[in-house]
Structures are given as C-alpha cells and as structure tokens.
C-alpha cells in the first residue's frame, strides 16, 4: 500500500486531472477515530464495466500505455481499506465525472499516517492546465477551504518556485490554525 493517506489522495486527484476534470472537489476530514476522503471530479467518467475493471490491478485505460499492463491506483486504495478497517466507494457517470470516497479507521494499527496535507495539496495545484481544485480540510476543531483558482488569483502562475513557496506558506498557516 501507499506510505501515507496523502499518497492515496495524490493518486486519486492525479487520476481526476488526467480524466480531463475542470473542477475537482477534495475533502480531507480527520478525527482521532476516523479518516475520511472524497475526490469528486467532473472529468470524462467511466461506464459500469470500466469502473469495475478499475479495481483490477492488471487493468489500465486502453491507449494510456501500450506496454504497461498494470494500473495500481484504485487497487492500492482498496487494499488499504481492506487491511485497515475501512471502506471505499466508487461512483461514475460517463461524461459527467467520477467520485471516489473512502474512510479508514484511524485507530487501526495498520492505517498509514495521514501525511503532510499542505505539501500534498500544493503538489496537486501544480499540474499543467486550467483545472480548479477545491480543498475542504476538516478536523473536529475547525475547517478551511482553499481553491486553486483563488490561489492563482492571489498569486498568479502557480508553477513558479516563488509563488509555489508562498502558496505553501498559506496552506501551512491554514493547517496550523486547524491544529492549535
């Protein structure tokens, strides 16, 4: 399985961007008991058959890689849920988008650490293209929301080192206020 929950999130959002999503909503909610994540995109979606196959590690989207015959993103998520006490749900409508949600038992000893949310989200803002990514980050104490479009509005191009560094400072600040 992936080393952190954030790695799973990176994988799912990368899938969304690669599926041509213009708008992806990401929810990351953590309490001492439960970790909940939802990635909802408006990308090209999958039919029921493709959705079923996405759980197979030996399936990848045709045409994506002619020689690579594996696709491990969703299988790694399912494995993590199975091993750590949790559940994943996949729903998709062709032409409308895909929603992947999962929860994990935070107290299960096999549950991976959440990981660094600001660092992860920063990376997810740095794919090429004009997609929007809306993060809702929630703990028992509080929550914050931030979107790629509003960050770009404030900072300009999000692929320059200097603006990325400022975005990181912003995300870190939001996250810190969540913990204190």
């Amino acid at each position: 399985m992936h080393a952190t929950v954030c790695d799973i999130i990176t994988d799912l959002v990368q899938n969304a961007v690669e599926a041509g999503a213009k708008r992806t909503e990401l929810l990351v909610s953590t309490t001492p008991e439960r970790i909940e994540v939802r990635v909802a995109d408006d990308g090209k979606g999958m039919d029921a058959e493709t959705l079923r196959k996405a759980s197979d590690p030996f399936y990848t989207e045709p045409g994506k890689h002619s020689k690579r015959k594996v696709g491990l993103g969703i299988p790694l998520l399912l494995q993590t849920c199975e091993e750590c006490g949790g559940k994943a749900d996949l729903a998709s409508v062709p032409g409308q988008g895909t929603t992947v949600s999962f929860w994990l038992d935070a107290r299960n000893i096999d549950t991976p650490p959440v990981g660094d949310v600001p660092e992860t989200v920063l990376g997810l803002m740095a794919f090429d293209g004009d997609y929007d990514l809306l993060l809702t980050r929630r703990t028992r104490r509080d929550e914050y929301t931030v979107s790629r479009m509003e960050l770009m509005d404030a900072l300009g191009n999000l692929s320059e080192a200097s603006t990325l560094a400022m975005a990181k400072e912003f995300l870190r600040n939001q996250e810190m206020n969540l913990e204190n």
Partner: protein
Amino acid sequence: MAKMTLADLKKLRESKQQAMSERDPSNKDTQVIVGMGTCGIAAGAKDTFNAILDELEKNNITTVLLRQTGCMGACASEPTVEVIAPDMPVVIYGKVNGDVGRQIVREHIIGKKLIDNHIVDRPALDIMK
C-alpha cells in the same frame, strides 16, 4: 499564529514582487517536471518535488517553471524528473530522491552540467504527446 487570509496572501505577493522583479532577468526559460503517477508517488516523488522547490527558492531562481505530471513511462526508475533547460539537452533523470533533486537544481540548472548516473532513456513512445 493569526490565520492568513487571501488578502494577506495578495499583500505578501505584492511585497515580494518588487524583490522578485529586481532579480527576474526575463521570462521562464526552464521547465522541471516531476512524474507523479502511482509509481512516482510510491517512490517518493512528493519529497523530490518539495526538495526541488526548496532549492530553487534558496538559490533565488526565478526562471524555472516547476510542474507535476502523471506517469512518464519509466516506472522502474521513479521518481523521474524531466528537465528542459536552455543550452542543455532535454533530459529525464531517474531515481531522483530529494538530494538528487537539489543536485539537479545546483548542477544541471545553475551549473549547466549533466548528472551522468541518473539519466534514463526517453520513455516509451506511446505515452509521449
């Protein structure tokens, strides 16, 4: 620490912009692209991305665009990083951990020197646009 607002972020940008424009020679002529497919993630590409970002900042480099992408087709050599820099061949580096990422900034981008033992072949043709 007080909670930062988007307005604060804009102010921060404006205050830094002056310093940035002073040191900004011209346009962005260099691209660094970090592979972030399942393979890259599992191999630690997130650390690589953040190490490169940190090193660019430390060295005040403003001519570089830093991006993420999906699988580049060299899963066995992850994390992979493509570097497109002026006067240098387009190179994909493999097995780029955080330290090698910093090395790329210092030696390839600043020093204009290839890092021999991390160069991998171009990826399979089917995934190239």
